[in-house]
């Protein structure tokens, strides 16, 4: 039901082809989209019932993110669907209700950014130095993941328009907006949760998003191959084209299955990080991306152009592969025996 309405909304509101055909003008968010999503209740999906939210399970959240990926949406739904409840848990009791209301109304927009002070921890509790990109276009507040050598990854929370921050506009590879932040003695609120956990949640959201991107690209390509004729017959008649699509289908099915598995594991662990995440993110960063490259190859030159969707899906997956733990980092977290025996409860 919810998914049907998500699909319908995406279909009826600036569907990808209308956005992509005019990509030269920039991949802007439709100005009213966020408020409409709030009105549709999507921003309440990750807010607990006791705060007036819908408290959806992870299957639902990741399924919505797949749809967003398949539609190449510029709005940072993933940040909100993956993190809202965690954020609310971390805030002092007095602030919970107002924050929940602001999130659900679309008034408070959350971004996530990593800060890796190169030269040891910053002095005291203030933040200093240049951060990586802010994920979450249009953010009014930031979750800052502060990597302190030897002290893990701590979590801080700050408004964007406060003192001690200067912002620079930028874009991600796929055209979504991003900011770069310079902290200058910014005094954030330090939260009592692990920054690693936030990274993993974001990575799980990216797995869903990029699986959606592969799905959208796959369907588009399949249609095209059935219509496009070369040498007197549809491209889809050629055996190598058929086998190429079958190969990508194998990876797509595995990506979908991985996303489902992440959701199941997160439901069981009540939203905590899940055993399969490093494997899933590593899979996204190599095979899923290769699948998208192959779809471009099968489509020929048109797959390279801005007016056609494939390139945008490819760049979205490339962006997802690089953020919140790339392949090398995720593989470094995998110990085969622990992962294999742990992940199916047979340890």
């Amino acid at each position, binding site marked *: 039901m919810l998914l049907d309405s998500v699909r319908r909304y995406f279909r009826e509101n600036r569907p990808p082809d209308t956005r992509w055909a005019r990509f030269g003008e920039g991949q802007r968010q439709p100005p009213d989209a966020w408020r409409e999503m709030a009105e549709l209740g999507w921003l309440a999906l990750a807010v607990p019932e006791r705060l007036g939210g819908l408290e959806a399970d992870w299957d639902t959240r990741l399924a919505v993110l797949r749809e967003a990926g398949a539609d190449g949406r510029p709005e940072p739904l993933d940040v909100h669907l993956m993190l809202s409840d965690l954020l609310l848990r971390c805030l002092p009791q007095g602030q919970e209700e107002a924050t929940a209301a602001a999130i659900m109304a679309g008034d408070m927009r959350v971004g996530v950014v990593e800060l890796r002070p190169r030269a040891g921890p910053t002095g005291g509790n203030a933040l200093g130095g240049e951060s990586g990109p802010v994920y979450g276009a249009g953010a009014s507040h930031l979750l800052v993941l502060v990597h302190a050598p030897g002290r893990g990854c701590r979590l801080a929370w700050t408004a964007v328009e406060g003192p001690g921050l200067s912002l620079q506009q930028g874009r991600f590879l796929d055209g979504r907006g991003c900011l770069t932040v310079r902290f200058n003695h910014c005094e954030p609120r330090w939260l009592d949760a692990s920054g690693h956990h936030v990274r993993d949640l974001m990575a799980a959201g990216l797995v869903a998003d990029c699986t959606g991107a592969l799905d959208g690209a796959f369907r588009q390509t399949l249609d095209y191959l059935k219509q496009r004729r070369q040498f007197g017959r549809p491209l889809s008649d050629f055996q190598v084209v058929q086998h190429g699509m079958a190969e990508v289908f*194998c990876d797509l099915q595995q990506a979908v*299955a991985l996303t489902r598995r992440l959701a199941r594991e997160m439901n069981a662990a009540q939203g905590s990080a899940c055993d399969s995440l490093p494997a899933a993110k590593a899979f996204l960063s190599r095979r899923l991306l290769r699948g998208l490259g192959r779809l471009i190859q099968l489509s020929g030159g048109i797959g390279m152009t801005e007016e056609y969707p494939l390139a945008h899906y490819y760049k979205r997956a490339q962006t997802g592969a690089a953020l919140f733990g790339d392949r090398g980092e995720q593989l470094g977290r995998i110990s085969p025996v622990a992962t*294999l025996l742990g992940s199916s409860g047979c340890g």
Partner: protein
Amino acid sequence: MASLFDTSELRSFRAEVRAFIHEHLPAEFAAKTRAGLHLHRDVVGRWQGILNRRGWGAPHWPLSAGGTGWDTYRRYIFEEECALADAPPGDVLGLFLAGPMLIAAGSEAQRTRYLPGILAGCEFWCQGFSEPNAGSDLASLKTTARRDGDHWVINGQKTWLTEGHQADLMFCLARTDDSVKPQAGLSQFIVDMKAPGISLQPILTMDEGHSVNAVFLDNVRVPGENLIGEPNRGWTYAKELLTRERTNNAQAPRTKRDIIALQRLAEAHPGPDGRPLMDDPIVRDRLAGLTADFVALESAVLSVLADEMAGREPGPEASILKIRGSELQQRVTETAMELLGEAGVVLEPGYGGGPRDPVARGWVERHLFRRVVTIYAGSNEIQRTIIARTILGM
């Protein structure tokens, strides 16, 4: 620990299975399973008998036919525990092919006569499908069965009979009607491997093992009641059977066990610098990559299981499991060969003697024999065509 299987019921089920295997699996069976490829029917049969006496002879059969009544999750957990304990794999030909076909299409009399032997591990089957000029293309097969009074008389030649030399019975695809289109005129028969007119010829494979065979059928007389199901429907039964086999062919539990064994190998085996291979970041990265791809495969298997739990039959989606599962099986042993280095290429004297270094035993034979897993049971090329045509509508 978050998992599909992480409920208290399933945890205690797993514990029960594990305890039973721990208590009843002879150590020599586990050692033989680790070391070898082509287990003797005595080993397979005796373990099958042990499981059957516990009531676990054929978990995937219907309860009425001797199954366990377990849901698909329990069946998977059972498979996984057997694999992790190095229990001998169940006989695919009887348990996964002949049995289910007889359950689906056989007569009551056939089921009564043949299923108990499979369950008890005392009767073994082989599959007479492929012919020298009909490998992936079964429709062009030439073996004929013609009616002669109460009997059928079969003539022809079959090949790639896995474990044919250990089999008591064969299910055999033969042409019973020339007048219709090739697929429509085939029937399936149960053939006694000791019947006059049958002669076997071993086919040695590159692992220096003997597991496959050719068989010649020269006026082999088969009683009329040995026809399976209806005449001229043999093609349909064969297709259903191959679909079932593809699901099994993902071999996820055994591959999980293999990757674990690979890590143990890397921890024990020294590299050229004398330190354990597992100290090498490149080796660790490699094993982690295999693990990630395994998790992807296992997730797809679990999705099919979840669908089955919801009452949906495995469809052509199972083809993706066959493709990715077989590729991964090959990559695992390719990695083992790279880790073993010289130890992987020095064999004992005498054909079939196996590797000299104990650390390499089992790996080398599996590596070589596993060139077959992307070829048999419908080659991966055939699977890709099935996906493109059946699922993608190309």
